[in-house]
């Protein structure tokens, strides 16, 4: 700041040097009129500590975006109202939470804005007006069904890892890209433990009531973990699911391999 004052002063004085005769007289000092102790005191130090402005992290995959679904719409193969329908998004989940989707690419402007999204069971284009506001998450869950681990990564690295139980070969946990859709708590069920996350992943088997979605939840049989023990859900010990609940917000992408 002192340097800036000096530079400005030098610039001002360089610029002013040299008369053009438009006003006679020597220059006068305004500062000289101020008493040794200026009755106009100095400005106080700022009561806010404002940090240096910082750019956003530039890694494209550092952040995922999700949005709630405001209106049930068809998902299209192309960003167009006449594109082939590849799925549908609804406003609610079977758990009666507001349905959310992941935003997986850039907006296209084509007679309105279109957004490429990943929903439960389909990937396609939806009109921007069908979605609510975007929320960013910095976490990502990696589920390894062969190593029986769930790892939560964040922009600052791995923040959680735990052993898991996964689906049996008769009812395997599906693999692919999914996301956390909701979180259930305060229900009474020792089977599911204290917390359950709903994901957008569906069991490959059909005829499930409530759609057959795969959850991530606790258990009343921790001794079975790790192992192929479930009907598709990802189970972990109760202390682990509670720790995960402190770290993993809804909308977190889930990669299952």
């Amino acid at each position, binding site marked *: 700041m002192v340097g800036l004052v000096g530079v400005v002063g030098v610039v001002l004085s360089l610029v002013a040097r040299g008369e053009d005769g438009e006003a006679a007289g020597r220059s006068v000092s305004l500062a000289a009129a101020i008493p040794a102790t200026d009755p106009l005191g100095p400005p*106080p*130090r*700022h*009561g*806010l*500590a*404002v*940090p240096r*402005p910082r*750019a*956003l992290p530039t890694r494209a995959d550092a*952040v995922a975006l999700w949005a709630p679904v405001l209106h049930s719409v068809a998902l299209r193969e192309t960003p167009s109202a006449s594109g082939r329908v590849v799925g549908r998004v609804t406003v609610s989940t*079977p*758990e009666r*939470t*507001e349905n*959310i989707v992941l935003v997986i690419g*850039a907006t296209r*402007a084509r007679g309105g*804005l279109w957004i490429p999204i990943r929903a439960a069971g389909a990937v396609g284009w939806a009109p921007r*007006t069908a979605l*609510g*506001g*975007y*929320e*960013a*998450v*910095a*976490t990502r869950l990696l589920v390894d069904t062969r190593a029986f681990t769930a790892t939560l990564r*964040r922009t*600052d690295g791995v923040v959680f890892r735990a052993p898991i139980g996964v*689906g049996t070969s008769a009812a395997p946990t599906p693999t692919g890209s999914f996301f956390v859709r*909701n*979180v*259930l*708590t*305060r*229900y009474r*069920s020792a089977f*599911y433990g204290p*917390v*359950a996350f*709903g994901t957008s992943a569906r*069991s490959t*088997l059909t005829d*499930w009531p409530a759609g057959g*979605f*795969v*959850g991530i*939840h606790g258990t009343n049989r921790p001794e079975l973990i790790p192992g192929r023990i*479930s*009907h*598709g*859900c990802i189970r972990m010990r109760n202390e682990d699911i509670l720790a995960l*609940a*402190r*770290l*993993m*917000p*809804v909308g977190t992408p889930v990669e299952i391999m």
Partner: protein
Amino acid sequence: MHLDLDQLDRDGALRETAAGVPGETRKDFLLGTLAGGGAALAALVLAEPGKAASKTDVDILNYALTLEYLQAAFYTEAERRGALRTPLAKETTRVLGAVERAHVRALRDALGAAAVAKPFFDFGGVTEDEDAFIKTAVAFEDLGTAAYKGQAYRIDSPALLAAAISIHSVEARHAAWIRYLAGAPPASAAFDEPKSMPEVRKLVASTGFIAQKPSTQSKERPRFTG
């Protein structure tokens, strides 16, 4: 090492999930983590907001914080969505976003536990269309300037007043900058007018940008595959 809650809690992950853990309020959760040795975290989070700041000052800081949340989220989303075409618009968005995020940090740090939570925003496509974005940015920066102007004289603490006044002129620069970009007069009158809190709140509400947080939590018994 000075632990910064924001660095641990990028994008509010901690705050959100804390709210979802059964039987625990956010405050309980934060106190609970102290047992794990987060002493520096305790010093930051449990600090008295502004060290005996008056209620007026706390209210004004929270009011400023809400507006800064709004602006920061607006520019951040526009930058992330990458829908801006011209290099000038992109550069302006980068710089303005960085400054508004710094303002958010400053106000949150000063307020500590008294800080209002970040609202849920729905910009409804405005951050994804360059013309709409620039027009709205003009309105936001003019509004921010008028809002700070409307409150500065009410601030009790001389130190907070100095800070607010200094942010106020920065917002005015932003307003002129984005107007220049928009092809609008950067300074259209000799005197800028203040806006009152009710007026500003009403204007912000009229945008519909502050929305209710989607309800993604339930007490339903899980009916997953199991």
